């Protein structure tokens, strides 16, 4: 036990002495959360819109207010006629123009319908789609209010789209679980494989092997510090996403932490496995980055939905561990479900962990070569 603690202490010293390791462990999670949360956001916020109101009545004014007060749009300017539209787009700040036809209000009251045109700047297709969807939603909402207040009491039936779990379609709700998944596997697998191969490269492994330390002691000594730091990392990410994005954990925090620990364990054993097959640090880094980071980003359902992938990729996806953890963590964090809904995924990760540990201990060389 004393030997083991001495080893763990040494590993902690390595970590805290090396600024690069610290950056990878604590800098990257913070950066990733912020980058994915803000920069790679699929939301629109304060998108510039111009209004061409050819009717200028009470209803169009109300509708304009509703649009610009939604938080999604911000009015850039009022246009006077159609020829201004092109110019407004060219200035660059305007992403969409709302046009109310002539006699909008009176037509709506008399004929029951009036036309609002939405013209979007499709040179940014993503934004254009979002703007269209959002303005449709706002218009629909407006219709509903209008019919509820109408004197004749006829309520127009509006197609109602209600989004569960993420009603505001906030994309960082989707990104945070993905980022946790990515970061844990990256730090655990990359750092453990690098730290073990570093001993091989610097020749210190030779001396460790010619010591009474058992392979399991070396492995556990290497892994323990990263296990503890990774748990701190999970807490850090959760607290940060709560403070910055207001993302709550709907389900049980205890369950979430337990599942995270299991996943950390799986990633660590994967890292040991990588170290047993790589001779140099470079090799270990290469395998971890190409072999783990890319599949996690592309195939785990982190960014691209698995259902939309070609069948062959779906099969590949089902053998990469992050896929299961993303499912678990999304369930717990966003839907608030309990272990009953994620036990299958949990078992898969548990099985993988046992398999990786088994192979690693078998493959860990008690000699050189």
């Amino acid at each position, binding site marked *: 036990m*004393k030997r083991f603690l001495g080893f763990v202490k040494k590993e902690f*010293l390595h970590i805290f002495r090396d600024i690069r390791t610290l950056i990878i462990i604590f800098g990257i999670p913070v950066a990733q959360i912020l980058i994915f949360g803000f920069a790679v956001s699929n939301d629109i916020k304060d998108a510039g819109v111009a209004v061409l109101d050819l009717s200028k009545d009470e209803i169009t004014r109300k509708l304009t207010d509703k649009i610009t007060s939604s938080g999604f749009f911000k009015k850039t300017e009022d246009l006077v006629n159609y020829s201004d539209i092109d110019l407004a787009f060219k200035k660059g700040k305007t992403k969409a123009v709302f046009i109310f036809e002539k006699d909008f209000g009176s037509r709506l009251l008399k004929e029951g319908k009036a036309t609002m045109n939405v013209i979007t700047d499709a040179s940014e297709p993503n934004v254009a789609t979002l703007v269209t969807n959002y303005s449709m939603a706002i218009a629909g909402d407006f219709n509903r209010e209008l019919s509820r207040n109408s004197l004749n009491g006829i309520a127009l039936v509006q197609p109602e789209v209600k989004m569960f779990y993420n009603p505001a379609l906030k994309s960082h709700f989707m990104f945070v679980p993905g980022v946790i998944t990515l970061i844990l596997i990256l730090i655990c697998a990359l750092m453990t494989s690098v730290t073990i191969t570093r001993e091989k490269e610097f*020749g210190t492994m030779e*001396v460790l092997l010619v010591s009474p330390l058992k392979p399991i002691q070396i492995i556990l000594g290497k892994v323990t510090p990263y296990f503890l730091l990774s748990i701190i990392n999970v807490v850090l990410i959760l607290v940060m996403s709560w403070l910055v994005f207001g993302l709550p954990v709907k389900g049980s925090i205890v369950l979430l932490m337990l599942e995270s620990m299991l996943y950390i364990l799986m990633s660590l054993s994967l890292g040991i496995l990588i170290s047993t097959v790589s001779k140099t640090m470079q090799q270990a880094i290469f395998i971890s980055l190409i072999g783990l980071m890319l599949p996690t980003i592309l195939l785990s359902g982190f960014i691209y939905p698995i259902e939309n992938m070609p069948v062959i990729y779906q099969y590949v996806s089902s053998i990469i561990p992050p896929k299961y953890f993303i499912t678990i963590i999304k369930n717990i964090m966003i839907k608030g479900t309990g272990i009953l809904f994620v036990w299958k995924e949990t078992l898969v990760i548990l099985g993988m962990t046992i398999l990786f540990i088994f192979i690693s201990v078998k493959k860990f060389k008690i000699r050189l070569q």
Partner: protein
Amino acid sequence: MQNAIEASGVSKKFGSTTALDDISFTVGESEVFGFIGPDGAGKTTLFRIITTLLIPDEGVVNVFGTNTVTGYRELRKNIGYMPGRFSLYQDLSVEENLNFYATVFGTTVKENYDLISDIYTHIEPFKKRLAGQLSGGMKQKLALSCALIHKPKLLVLDEPTTGVDAVSRSEFWDMLSKLRRHNITIIVSTPYMDEATRCDRVALIQAGKILVVDKPEIIQSGFSRKLFAVKSVMKHQLIGALRKYPETITAWPFGDSVHLTLRDNKIDQSLYSFLEREGISDTVIIETPAGIEDRFLELMNKPE
């Protein structure tokens, strides 16, 4: 007296290269035993087999009567190993390195301090310094302290003096001599032939084979010819010229002179006139006693 190491018929191949070819030798207890040989002779491979890190293809090595392959667990408690590259953690301080190795071997620095005190006092003033910032000589002393900290019965030092300045090299051998009284068997490899005289016995190893094993003075006395030291200002041309001389067997640079052996074991006028024709006129030739290096060179260049 029990033998510390008994090796018989040890061979090891890496692919098609033969690193060790049917090697046998014994090392007595408390002996300082040297392996002398050029780079690539197989010294490191041999040491890795002795330290249980490699399995020989053929042959058996017993350390204190325990087989290195089957009894590796037992042996690893009793071996202190210092690999060719000083295996220190560069980002840990002197003190931290020593403490780490002490705990790994289940002991404390205090417990065995008397064993390393001679060595460690040299580097103790720098105990807070990171190992990566030490000079070669200090690294070597720290690595030796780390290898000794658990009081091993066998100390294995792979080229401990390579890359270390001459003064530190000499100091290092003094330290090894002092360790004798602690009843520790030491095997040490080196490419420097002059260090052979500091060992109790040496084995000359070349291309995976042991050419000779004996006490250094006995090896030295085996020199079979008369040896002449030839001096000239133009040393470089001198070697070339001497090697062209038909009576020459060997001509090796040695310090500021050239050591020469001749077929008829005597210097005559024809050599002087030969050298003069080659443009070297200031030669001084004297007969000189053969050193151990001369004997090694003779052995290493013996035709098969």
